[in-house]
């Protein structure tokens, strides 16, 4: 490949492509990431490029906005060993898949040391595969319970309590969840199953899904979907849930913090009575297991400049950059200490501690499995539509889920 490029350079066919490096200018680092709407990543990348003193120049290569579409584009390039990718903005659920396939580099020990203890343990765990660190967290995300302070006195602690309160409120007691057949459904199911006291996998390829707790979680999902969710629950995603809550017809919603500034702008009368609480529990005596999201930065195995790429990463994740991303994009920082800063309280008025608590308590999806995509497809297939889960008798759904997940772990058959 290199020889071919050299020949082409010599022939002068790709003048632009090889001119920059031979001229001794800054090395171009291509950062593949979705176009974060606030533009904060672009600004911090520009600053880092400037601070590098002409050693590197980060260039953005935008991926689509949906996580599935981002992954589809990336994996095809990586599987083809595309050497134009240097930095990758990875959804936290891709770690196992990318690391196992040998597409991303292990993070150097020195960087790992700096991160340990600084970054939330739950977040750092999402960047590990087989006890090795493959990516560097830059921002996190977590779901909270949003509720109407004018309709309930106390936010519900459990899903059962929430259903009770919803019933008492009546037609406006709706609960907004995400249950379309997409990643969001896996997110919800994972949170419910964890909070019921079991998990989907107990190792990269070991099925857990204890029957009693799983059925309890499934029954609740069925009940919420049938009794309290809006009629379009089977196609509901984060955005339709937000719209539903902003319309005022709903009193509860589980969703990411972006809904807070959005309501402030679109629905001031709803915003006035908008409260936040920790993601509800399934069992009163077991901890809540809020969903975890966010982006980790990885260096492609095929990048010709891995050292510079890691250098760029250490610049990008600096505390003031994390704060800037939080300020303009509303995306929670990954450094625990930043939650003591006064800026954070301004960004998340009244619920910054809650976000910290939620990220600390978060239970990630079983993304350590290299076949996570299969796993997620299997879970979505088994559970969708959630209105089809019989709350009185969830065993049928449980068996379907178990069989599908087993199939996914063994990677056999169609999904």
């Amino acid at each position, binding site marked *: 490949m290199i020889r071919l490029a050299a020949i082409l350079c010599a022939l002068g066919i790709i003048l632009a492509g090889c001119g920059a490096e031979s001229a001794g200018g800054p090395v171009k680092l291509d950062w593949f990431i979705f176009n974060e709407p606030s533009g904060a990543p672009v600004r911090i990348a520009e600053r880092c490029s400037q601070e590098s003193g002409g050693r590197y120049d980060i260039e953005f290569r935008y991926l689509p906005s949906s996580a599935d579409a981002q992954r589809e584009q990336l*994996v095809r390039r990586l*599987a083809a060993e595309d050497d134009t990718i240097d930095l990758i903005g990875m959804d936290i659920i891709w770690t196992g898949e990318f690391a196992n396939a040998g597409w991303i580099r292990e993070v150097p020990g020195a960087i790992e040391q700096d991160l340990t203890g600084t970054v939330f343990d739950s977040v750092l765990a999402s960047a590990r595969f087989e006890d090795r660190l493959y990516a560097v967290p830059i921002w996190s995300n977590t779901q909270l319970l949003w509720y109407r302070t004018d309709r309930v006195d106390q936010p519900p602690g459990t899903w059962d309590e929430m259903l009770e309160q919803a019933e008492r409120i009546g037609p406006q007691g709706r609960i907004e969840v995400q249950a379309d057949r997409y990643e969001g459904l896996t997110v919800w199911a994972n949170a419910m199953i964890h909070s019921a006291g079991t998990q989907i996998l107990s190792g990269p390829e070991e099925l857990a899904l204890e029957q009693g707790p799983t059925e309890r979680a499934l029954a609740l999902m069925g009940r919420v979907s049938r009794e309290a969710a809006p009629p*379009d629950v089977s*196609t509901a995603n984060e955005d339709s849930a937000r*719209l539903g809550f902003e*319309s005022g017809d709903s009193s509860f919603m589980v969703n990411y913090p972006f809904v807070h500034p959005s309501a402030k702008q679109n629905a001031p009368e709803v915003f006035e009575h908008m409260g936040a609480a920790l993601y509800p529990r399934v069992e009163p005596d077991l901890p809540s297991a809020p969903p975890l999201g966010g982006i980790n930065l990885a260096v492609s195995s095929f990048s010709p400049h891995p050292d510079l790429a890691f250098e760029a990463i250490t610049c990008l994740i600096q505390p003031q950059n994390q704060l800037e991303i939080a300020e303009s994009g509303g995306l929670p920082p990954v450094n625990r200490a930043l939650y003591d800063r006064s800026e954070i309280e301004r960004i998340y008025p009244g619920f910054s501690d809650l976000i910290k608590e939620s990220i600390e308590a978060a239970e990630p999806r079983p993304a350590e499995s290299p076949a996570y995509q299969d796993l997620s497809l299997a879970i979505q297939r088994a559970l969708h539509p959630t209105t089809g889960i019989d709350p009185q008798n969830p065993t049928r759904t449980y068996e379907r889920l178990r069989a599908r997940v087993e199939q996914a772990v063994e*990677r056999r058959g*169609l999904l």
Partner: protein
Amino acid sequence: MATTLPRLRRRERARSGRARSEEHTAWLLCAPAVATILLVTAYPIGYAVVLSLQSLDLRFPEEGGFVGLDNYGTVLSSPLWWQTVFNTAFITVVSVVIELVLGMALAVVMHRAIFGRGLIRTTVLIPYGIITVVAAFAWFFAFDPSTGFVNSLPLIADDTAWFGDRFSAFAVIIMAEVWKTTPFMALLLLAGLTTIDEGLYEAAKVDGATAIQRFFRITLPLMKPAILVALLFRTLDAFRVFDSIFIMTGGGQDTESVSILGYNQLISRLNLGLGSAVSVLIFLFVLAIAALYIRGFGTSVPGREEQK
């Protein structure tokens, strides 16, 4: 078969040196086109067949190898495959039948239009000119309970979740398909209509045939070749339905088509072996449909006419 053999032999005998050299030149002239077609179609299809005989997952580059027909066994023994075949066949049959009826009506109107012919024909074609994904989004948003206008129409419950139930989702998908491709059907049928000699209608009128009789006794029989070609094209097209389903339900509510299934294996799971097996099977289905139309119903395809 038996009837063609003697004719072939006679031709063989009659072959002179000149004919042979003419044939030689003909092949030479065709060669670039044949080579291009082999390169852009035969090679990818052949490659897909080769992939389908392997266990190959891009996420697990170390694993894999030749597995013979295992992938086909996996696909054909999976209830999911047959479910998607049924879904696809259902969408195909229902949408093509509706398109045929509507397309025929449109063709007759376009044919009989006295003024503004060009304008009418262009207007009718607009839906066909819209990119399928864009059209799918338009239909999706129209039927979406929170943003769409459909639920605010009279006689429709305000909270109808169109994409939350299998058959209402099918209905919207089929409507979108019909809306988009009826113009294509109408255009093909219009071409057939214009070939019918007006004199036949006049003669029938003189004999006292009603409009309905004229349609069923003259128009339909004479249009049979055009109808079959239109049906063939649309059936092949409809069987590969992807965009509308992808946008509207993503395959949820059991509305998955075979193409969506193939996409999931190939693009999402990167399982090239299984995905290629699905693709090859779709290809075989399409071939079978084409064969059924051409052999079974005697559809004439372009280029064959001269031999008749």
